[in-house]
């Protein structure tokens, strides 16, 4: 077990696009820096505290999720932020897990595609992607699911341009995107139909 970490959780509003404070006030704390060990630590993933052991400092959050925690939903395709197949939410903000050091996620909330639905269940976005034919090899799919989840939670009624913009960091080599966009529209329609236009929920 690592010692008590003084790692405040980011207090950003989920998806609010950040509202940083004003400069100039100066931080009160003149304390000593806290350290964490890079080989043994805990992460909070999908609401559960998970122990990471025998890690190397340079391991990405993506590697830690896949290889150490057995969460292989997030995919590794490029390891350079270009494809979005490793998209996860870090303190409620969508990022590439391949560009986060695993150890730098200590104290943060990590949400992966596995956490978007109860075990064994399929989220509506996943079902819509399948129904629309937006899944071929499926390698890009988890990243799209996380990115669409993030968008529709913030902007349930996102228009076509906003959807394209939000998915511009997710590459698909198979589908040509048309069916993926169609799936997003289907989710928007069915959520709007099922609870009065603001179905994105949590």
């Amino acid at each position, binding site marked *: 077990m690592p010692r008590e970490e003084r790692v405040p959780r980011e207090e950003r509003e989920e998806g609010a696009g*950040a509202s940083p*404070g*004003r400069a100039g006030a100066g*931080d009160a704390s003149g304390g000593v*820096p806290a350290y964490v060990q890079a080989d043994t630590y805990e992460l909070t993933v999908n609401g559960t505290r998970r122990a990471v052991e025998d890690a190397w400092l340079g391991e990405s959050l993506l590697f830690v999720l896949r290889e150490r925690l057995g969460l292989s939903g997030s995919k590794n395709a490029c390891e350079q*932020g270009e494809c979005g197949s490793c998209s996860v939410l870090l303190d409620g903000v969508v990022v590439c897990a391949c560009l986060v050091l695993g150890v*730098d996620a200590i104290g943060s909330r990590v949400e992966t595609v596995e956490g978007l639905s109860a075990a064994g269940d399929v989220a509506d976005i996943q079902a819509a992607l399948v129904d629309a034919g937006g899944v071929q090899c499926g390698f890009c799919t988890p990243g799209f699911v996380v990115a669409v989840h993030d968008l529709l939670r913030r902007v349930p009624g996102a228009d076509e341009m906003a959807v394209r*913009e939000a998915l511009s*960091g997710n590459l698909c080599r198979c589908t040509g995107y048309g069916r993926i966009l169609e799936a997003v529209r289907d989710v928007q329609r069915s959520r709007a139909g099922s609870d009065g236009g603001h179905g994105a929920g949590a």
Partner: protein
Amino acid sequence: MPVARVAVPTTVDEAVQALRETPGAQLLAGGTDFCVEVNFGLRRPPAVVALRRVRELRRYEVTPASVVIGAGTTYADMGGPELSSVLPALAAAARTVGSPQIRNAGTLGGNVATASPAGDTLPLLTALDARVRLRGPSGGRTVALGEVVTGVKTTSIAPDEVVVEVVLDRRPGPQQFLKVGTRNAMVIAIASAAVVVDLEAHDVRVALGSVAPVPVRAAAAEAHIADAIDWRAAGGPRASAAALARFAELVADAASPITDHRSTSEYRRRAVQVIARRALERCVARAA
């Protein structure tokens, strides 16, 4: 081998102290440059000082005369409503960076410290004569951006120094940023240009990206066009077609582009004058 430690400071002073007391430690902000290098085996940090929890670095302050932006400010923040209302060209540049995932993580300080010729915040910072505030073990210093970014991916930032914030003067008037690449998202600039028009001082500032080892001002183009603009024209300043054409030529003269895997020097020189002129024409009307 000792177990690597990662410092997780919550203030700039703690970050500086962590750098000092941890030999070989490297600063990590959003990780969008850092982690690519680690993933590809180009960087093997013996220790890391992670800046994500330093809230001080995420602040920004807008006063009537200037805007101070914390180094930890993300592209998402730069493109947000508050900063885009005072620095629209910085917001425009921020919105062209990478993808939503990259913009949520990548920071201004990381862009300055990486000092890529294609760093998208750098042209506007250069146009506005940005000052960079750094802090190290012996205190703080404020340096012109041009003295920080000294060459292709090289800076004068000491290994034990943290970029704290960037200070930009506000200019009354329109400003624009344009960039050319192979698509409209997720693209490193082949050429970029920032144009700032000051309606009170009657001057024009032009800085170019990706066409020289460091961002460059097009001083001759600036002087020429400031002279050629009819600042008192009814309906706002205007310039003649001939003056705009000459402006574009002088912009091209200021560029010293190379040919690499992204583009050729010829295309870059051509592209940069087209976008600089277009950016100017979005600030200043063309006289009939």
